């Protein structure tokens, strides 16, 4: 069946009883930020999100994939390189100060917020066709 113009696909796995509410909240915040950006800057309707928990290691991983334009893919690469440098709190404060002066409607705070508030490892993968995947790994 053809997909409608707008849709949300949600898949439910086992109940996450082994994850504390605070960690779950942090992952929810991070995933919300990633999804918001993926939809806002996506070049197509296809945005994919998967959140996985690995009880054996205690790792939680969330990935969001979307199709970007060449420019947006380059912009996210530049932002990633910038905010992943140095101390997470210092990077967050610097980015907040810069955000306060922006007039283009963007905040560019999502990734740096995730980095500081969740302590996650953040990975960025961009394919030659500008498909962007951001993965956060919370240990």
């Amino acid at each position: 069946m053809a997909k409608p113009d707008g849709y949300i696909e949600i898949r439910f796995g086992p109940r996450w009883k082994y994850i504390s509410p605070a960690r779950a909240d942090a992952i929810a915040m991070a995933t919300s930020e990633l999804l918001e950006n993926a939809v806002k800057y996506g070049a197509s309707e296809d945005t994919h999100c998967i959140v996985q928990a690995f009880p054996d290691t205690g790792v939680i991983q969330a990935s969001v994939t979307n199709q970007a334009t060449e420019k947006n893919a380059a912009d996210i690469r530049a932002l990633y390189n910038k905010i992943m440098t140095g101390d997470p709190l210092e990077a967050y404060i610097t980015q907040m100060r810069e955000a306060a002066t922006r007039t283009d409607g963007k905040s560019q705070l999502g990734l740096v917020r995730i980095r500081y508030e969740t302590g996650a490892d953040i990975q960025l993968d961009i394919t030659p066709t500008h498909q962007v995947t951001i993965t956060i790994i919370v240990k």
Partner: protein
Amino acid sequence: MNKLNIAPINQGKIQVDLLDNADGLTVKLVGDIDMEDPSLLLDPFFEKVHQGMVAGKIPFVVADFQGLTFLNSSGIKAVAKWIMKLAMLPPDQKYQIRIAHNKAITWQVTSLPTLTFLVPGAVKIQ
């Protein structure tokens, strides 16, 4: 209406109001700020509060986030923009923003304290 005659925001899941209290003023934020660009609502509101605080020489305002279940990064930008206005004021016009937060809401515990670093002395967590 409050003493600065600033009208509340009541749109969708967001309610923001300026309330008079015994000590001064409280900006009360309630709901869920996850819209694409909350600055469109928040920037004009915070600007009016800022101008009123300066004109009235009011020493502090409480920013009450306790009823706000979520604030996206675009919303954080709007709050940061308000706070950064304090950096531009001469000493005799400065006022303080006192943040009231809910320790049961995870994002408030992790996000709101970072705002105290933007302008030294301008923001205090209650």
